[in-house]
């Protein structure tokens, strides 16, 4: 368990295990979505900020139980979608009415009506790309390597387990108190998660 405490970066304390590997956080398992929901409310009310609940499917209402603020993704999608539509319209107008103006079927090339279908499609296309790429970017994905994915028990989250992990980088993180909180919330198999072993942790002179 959390052994010696090392003074680390200016931002705060770095906890390490007895073997000197930095701690990513403490993880606890919950049996059901209902348990996870209750435990999330407790962790939220305890004031933690850098923590997360893990579940095989989105548990209804868990974002409120965790106190997650609504994502701004829809605004980004709307802005880029409308920009894509506007650029799509300008492209058609420039190509058909400016760069190589042509009268087709006796209609003024500056008329806007015939350009609407493609404007619409290009707006949808930009919005769809923003939705998925924006979701990934906001989630900091792809991230093919993560301390949690190295834990054998964590792999069962993708099947039928529910977990909460409170990260050591949280200001309120304390090896003992955090562990007690997770247990009091009904967590089982409470365990430390080791951070990337590649992270430089050598005590150069010992702070």
């Amino acid at each position, binding site marked *: 368990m959390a052994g010696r405490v090392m003074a680390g970066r200016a931002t705060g304390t770095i906890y390490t295990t007895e073997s000197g590997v930095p701690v990513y956080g403490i993880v606890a398992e919950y049996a059901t979505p209902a348990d996870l929901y209750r435990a999330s409310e407790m962790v939220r009310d305890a004031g933690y900020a850098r923590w997360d609940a893990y579940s095989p499917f989105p548990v209804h209402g868990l974002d409120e139980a965790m106190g997650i603020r609504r994502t701004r993704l829809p605004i980004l999608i709307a802005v880029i979608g409308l920009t894509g539509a506007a650029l799509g319209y300008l492209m058609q107008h420039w190509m058909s009415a400016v760069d190589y103006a042509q009268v087709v079927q006796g209609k003024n090339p500056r008329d806007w009506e015939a350009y609407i279908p*493609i404007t619409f*499609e290009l707006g949808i296309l930009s919005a769809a790309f923003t939705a*998925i790429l924006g979701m990934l970017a906001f989630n900091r994905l792809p991230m093919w*390597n993560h301390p949690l994915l190295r834990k054998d028990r964590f792999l069962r989250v993708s099947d039928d387990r529910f977990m909460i992990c409170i990260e050591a980088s949280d200001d309120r993180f304390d090896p003992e108190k955090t562990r007690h909180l997770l247990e009091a919330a009904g967590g089982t198999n409470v365990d430390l998660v080791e951070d990337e072993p590649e992270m430089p942790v050598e005590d150069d002179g010992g702070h």
Partner: protein
Amino acid sequence: MSVLHPDEATARRLAGLVPAPVGAADPGKGDGSLEDEPGKRAPLVLGNRSFGDVTNIVCGYIENKPARWWLPTVLFTGSIAGLGGMFIAYLVITGIGTWGLNNQVDWAWDITNFVFWIGIGHAGTLISAILCLLKQRWRTAINRSAEAMTIFAVICAATFPGIHIGRQWMAWMLFPLPNANAIWPNFRSPLLWDVFAVSTYGTVSLLFWYMGMIPDLATLRDRADARMRRNPNGATVLPFVPIRIDRLRAFVYGLLSLGWRFSSRHWHRYETAYLVLAGISTPLVLSVHSIVSFDFATSIVPGWHTTIFPPYFVAGAIFGGFAMVLLLLIPFRSLFPRMSDLITLRHLENMAKIVLATGMMVGFAYGMEFFIAWYSGSQFEQEAFLYNRLMPPFFAGEEGRYAPYWWAYWAMIGCNVVSPQVFWFKAMRRSPLVIFIVSFLVTIGMWFERFVIIVTSLHRAFLPGEWHMFTPTLVDIAIFVGSCGVFLTLFLLFARYLPMFAISEVKAVLPQASPHYHPEPAGPAGEKGGH
């Protein structure tokens, strides 16, 4: 000390540790999913399944050895696809004169097949987008396979306009790319709208499908990873090839799942993005077949020049698409173990109802075309409907005029309007065999619908001196059959290597997925008290 959670109880029962309770299914409820009482919710997944069961069932299709029929079937459909490819090569080398086209009928099977396949592609997005917005939770059982089907249908569809242009190596000119002639495509042409609509639709459907699969691919990754950690010396891909199957799986599914780790903060943005995608795909799916119908409706050809075309085409696309979903899923649910627990009779019944509803819309449109032809007072329009399509030889009056393609028209009416009427009867729309037969007829009928619209309108237009019949050649037939081969091969590969169900979505509609779920046995789930 601890109360056994019902989820665990089910898991134990299914693992064979506890004998299964012998529950006599109510015969009036079919497999248990048919609930006629309005106040009661019928189960969406049968067999009192746990979360782990859902994972095991769906991942089992990929991880277990394939059934014996799979390899021969995929080789057969793959050969058909390859044969179709060879005929396309022949067409490109020789020219589209190898099709049965002539001066009068210059669009025939190529565009028929295009509209046929793009129409089939509409069911997937309808199920994943519109039914999502309408909160139809039963869609979770079918959305993944329907979305896959959409993509494969769009691939087949996009082939035909691509090869029908004559000089296929100039296909890049469909897109506004700078070129030596300094000319741009004609943005005022419905054919170009079509290019943008279909390519946008294909891309967005692919994104939607892929995004939905990310968590399920992560599940497959984690299972392979866990097996690797337990037993690093598992089976290899082939004897003497030192690549472990599970290592390969963990790598490929891991790469594709982008490191998804089921975080709730991620789920929050994921669900938002999914909802937005559903919201923007809904007008998109309605626009695509509307734009396809503009190809015809903006022309002056009698039989094409019709304002009813956009809604009529959209209804027809959903109709044909659902028929294809049923056509694929009904055999699959009997061939794959325990799939009938996920796709229940109620799912089939719901889809049969949609087929009936959209079939009635299509039937209404067929009737309306005649009314408008009469009401317009245009002789050309009336003749096109009466003597290009409707009139069979045995009703031809004294003049002996009849529609040479009357059999195609009546095949369409029989398949699309008459056959779905059996779904008014409860017993019929609850019988997988009946639904399968009707879906098969509807699929044929929808192909004939496009043939009727395109060929019968063209073959006798304004000048009788130019009238000409269309006869398909071997190349016409082989390329169409080849496209069916491509479609089936892709679907079989999908069923073997990708999750056929949205695992996380199916879990989320199980009753125990609710955070406010209380198991029926004594003792609330939360009071387990530590460990």
